[in-house]
C-alpha cells in the first residue's frame, strides 16, 4: 500500500508541476499582452483553495480534480462583459495576440523540459558504461559482428557515454524505423562499425528488453570467489572458512566467480558440499552444509552466512560519472527537447498509421507507476521523467484537435485565411468531434494501462 501511496504522490506531484507550468504560460503571456485574466486554476471543478492579491484582478485557485487546469480570461463569447473590461477581452484582441496566448502553454512545457534536461546534465548522472558482455550466437547482434568486451561508443552518430543513454538512442533509432549504425571500441582501443537492419528490434513496445532481443548482454564484473566476512555461528564459520579464503572448487567442480558459488550454495540446502580452498598459498579441503532458509516469495534456498569481499576497484571499469558544464549543456538540452518532441510525434504517427502497436500508449496509471519509481530513485530520475512527460504534454496539446490548444490554433489559421472566425455552430460540432476523439483516446489509454497492470 505504501508503494501505491508513493505512486499517487509522485503522479500528482509531477502532474501538478506540469499543469502549473502549462497554465502559467497562458497566464503570463495573456497578462503581458493586456488580456484581463479572471481566474488561474490548477485542477478542474470545485475550488478547494482560493486567494486574491491586492490590485490584481485574478483569482488564484486550486481545484478538486487534479488532471488539468485552466486560465479564465474575459471573453464576450462566454458571457456578458462590462464596458470597462472590453479592451481586455480575449476575443477583441488581434489574431497574433490570441495565437501567442494559446501557443504559450505548450511552449512553456517545452521550455520547462529544456530547463529540466539542462539540470539533469549539469547535476550529472552515475551510469554504467555500455559494455557488451555476451553476444548470443546466431542473434542479430552476432550477425552484425559484435564481439564481447566491446564498448558501444555511439548509435547513429550520437555519443552514448552511459548504458541508459544508449538505450534511449536505440529507442529513438528504432522508432524512426531506420537501420541502426553502431560504433564500438574494443579492449585494445580499435574502433569498429556495426550495422543493424531496421527490423532487428521490432516493435519497441512489444519488446521489454530490446538489447536482449538483439542478442546483446551487458558485461558485468566478475567478482572473485573470495570470502570477505564470516558470520559467527553460521555454517561457514562452523566449517572453518575464514576471510581471505579463495574458493577453488565445490564438489570437485571449479568455481568461476562469486555468483556461481552463491548459486551453487542456494541450490543445495542441507547437503554437505566439499570445498577446496586456497588460504595464504596453501590448499585446504573443507566441508560446509548450507542451512535451509525460506525467502519472502516462498522459495527454499541454502545459506552459509558468508559475504564476499567488497571490491570497489572492480566496478571502476563499469562506472562513469557523466556530467557537463553549464554552457556546454545548454545547446544539448535544447537538442534533447527537440529530439524528444520529434520522437513523440513519430511514435504517434506510427500508431495512427498502424505501424506501431497501441501498447506504446501510456496513460495515467503507467505515468504514476513511473513517477512513483522515479521519486524513490532520486531527484535526477524524477527530473528526467518530468522532462519527458512535459515534452509529451506540450506536443500533445499542439495537436490540431478541437478542445486542445492546437485546435484553437487551427481556428486561428482558418481566421487568418478567410478573414473571419468559424461559425459558432461549426465550432460546436468541431468541439464534439474533438471531445469524441479525446474520449476514445482515454478509453484506449486506460485499457492499455489496465492490461499492463494485470499482465
Amino acid at each position: 500500500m505504501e508503494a501505491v501511496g508513493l505512486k499517487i504522490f509522485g503522479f500528482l506531484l509531477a502532474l501538478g508541476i506540469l499543469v502549473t507550468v502549462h497554465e502559467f504560460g497562458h497566464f503570463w503571456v495573456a497578462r503581458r499582452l493586456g488580456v484581463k485574466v479572471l481566474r488561474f486554476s490548477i485542477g478542474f471543478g470545485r475550488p478547494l483553495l482560493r486567494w486574491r492579491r491586492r490590485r490584481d484582478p485574478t483569482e488564484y485557485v486550486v481545484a478538486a480534480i487534479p488532471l488539468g487546469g485552466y486560465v479564465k480570461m474575459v471573453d464576450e463569447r462566454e458571457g456578458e462583459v462590462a464596458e470597462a473590461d472590453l479592451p481586455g477581452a480575449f476575443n477583441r484582441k488581434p489574431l497574433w495576440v490570441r495565437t501567442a496566448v494559446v501557443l504559450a502553454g505548450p511552449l512553456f512545457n517545452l521550455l520547462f523540459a529544456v530547463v529540466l534536461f539542462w539540470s539533469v546534465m549539469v547535476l550529472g548522472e552515475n551510469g554504467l558504461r555500455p559494455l557488451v558482455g555476451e553476444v548470443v550466437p546466431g542473434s542479430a547482434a552476432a550477425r552484425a559482428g559484435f564481439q564481447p568486451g566491446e564498448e558501444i561508443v555511439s548509435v547513429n552518430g550520437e555519443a552514448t557515454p552511459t548504458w541508459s543513454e544508449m538505450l534511449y538512442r536505440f529507442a529513438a533509432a528504432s522508432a524512426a524505423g531506420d537501420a541502426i549504425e553502431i560504433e564500438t571500441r574494443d579492449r585494445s582501443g580499435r574502433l569498429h562499425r556495426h550495422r543493424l537492419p531496421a527490423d532487428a528490434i521490432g516493435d519497441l513496445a512489444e519488446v521489454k528488453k530490446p538489447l536482449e532481443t538483439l542478442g546483446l548482454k551487458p558485461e558485468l564484473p566478475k567478482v572473485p570467489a573470495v570470502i570477505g566476512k564470516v558470520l559467527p555461528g553460521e555454517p561457514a564459520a562452523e566449517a572453518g572458512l575464514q576471510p581471505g579464503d579463495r574458493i577453488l572448487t565445490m564438489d570437485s567442480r571449479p568455481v568461476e566467480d562469486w555468483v556461481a558459488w552463491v548459486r551453487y550454495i542456494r541450490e543445495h540446502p542441507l547437503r554437505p558440499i566439499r570445498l577446496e580452498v586456497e588460504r595464504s598459498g596453501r590448499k585446504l579441503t573443507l566441508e560446509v552444509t548450507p542451512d535451509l532458509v525460506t525467502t519472502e516469495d516462498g522459495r527454499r534456498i541454502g545459506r552459509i552466512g558468508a559475504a564476499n569481499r567488497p571490491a570497489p576497484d572492480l566496478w571502476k571499469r563499469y562506472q562513469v560519472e557523466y556530467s557537463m558544464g553549464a554552457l556546454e549543456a545548454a545547446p544539448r538540452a535544447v537538442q534533447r527537447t527537440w529530439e524528444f518532441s520529434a520522437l513523440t510525434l513519430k511514435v504517434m504517427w506510427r500508431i495512427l498509421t498502424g505501424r506501431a502497436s497501441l501498447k506504446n500508449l501510456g496513460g495515467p496509471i503507467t505515468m504514476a507507476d513511473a513517477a512513483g519509481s522515479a521519486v524513490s530513485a532520486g531527484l535526477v530520475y524524477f527530473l528526467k521523467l518530468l522532462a519527458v512527460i512535459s515534452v509529451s504534454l506540450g506536443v500533445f496539446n499542439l495537436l490540431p484537435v478541437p478542445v486542445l490548444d492546437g485546435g484553437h490554433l487551427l481556428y486561428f489559421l482558418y481566421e487568418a485565411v478567410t478573414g473571419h472566425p468559424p461559425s459558432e455552430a461549426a465550432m460546436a460540432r468541431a468541439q464534439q468531434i474533438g471531445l469524441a476523439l479525446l474520449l476514445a483516446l482515454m478509453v484506449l489509454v486506460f485499457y492499455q494501462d489496465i492490461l499492463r497492470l494485470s499482465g
Partner: protein
Amino acid sequence: MLASRLLTALVLVPLVFLAVLKLPEPGFAFLLGAVVLGGAWELTRLAGLTSPSQSALAVALTAGVLGALYPLRQTSLAEMALLLLAAWWTVNLVAMLSGRVQPRSRSGLLLPRLLLGLLFLAGAWLALVRLRGLPGGAGLVLSFLVLIWVADSAAYFAGRRFGRRKLAPAISPGKTVEGAMGALTGAALFALLCGYAGWVPLSWPAAVGLYVATAAVSIGGDLWESLLKRERGVKDSGHLLPGHGGVLDRIDSQIAAAPLFLTGIWLLGRGG
C-alpha cells in the same frame, strides 16, 4: 395503430431471428446491408436530396462503401473506427440531453448531414457484421437486437405509466426522463439474465455496465433521428413498415448503439 404495429412485429421478429441464426456471415452481411441501404434511401430525403435519381446515386455509393469495408471488418483499423464512433455517439448523447443541440428549421441540401449520416449507417453495419463474425457472434447479435427492443419497450411502457418530466423537449416532446429510466432498468435486468445464463462472454457486472451504456446511447440515436425529422418537418422517415414508419425509424437506436456495444465486447469481453 398499435394493432398493425404488433402485427408487423409478429412477422418481422421471427424473420430477424431466422436471419441472424441461420444465415452464414456473408449472407447476414448482405441482408443487413440491404436494410441499411433502405435507411440510407430515407436519409437522402431527410438530408435534402429531392430527385430519386440523386438518392439512388447516393445509395449506390453507400453500397460501394459497404463493399469496400467488408474485407476490413476484422482488422484493428475497423476496431479503431468503431471506438471513435462509439465515443462520438456518447458525446452526442450528452450534447443533446444538455440542450446544446437545438433543432433549427432547415431547407435545401445539407451535404455534411448526408455524408455524416451515411457514415453512421456504414459504421453501424460494420459493427454488427464484425460482431456476427466473432466466436459466438450470432448469439451476440441477437442479444444486442433483443436488448434494444427490451429498452425501447421498457421506455414505452414506463413512459406511459410514469412519464412526467420531458427528456429533451426541443428535440422530441414524446420522450420522458421516466421512460429513459425504464429503458436503462430494462437493459440492466436483461443484462443480468444474459450474464447469468452465460449467453454473452461477459461477467455480469461488465454485462450490466455495457448493456446500460448501450441502452443510453441508443436513446441518443433516437433523438438524433428525431432531430433530423424535426428540422425537415416530417413525422416518419418513410412508410415501408405498417405502423412503424420507415426503416430509419426502426433502426435509429441500433445505429447509435452498435459501435458502442461492439467496442464494449472488445474491451470487456473474456478471451476476446
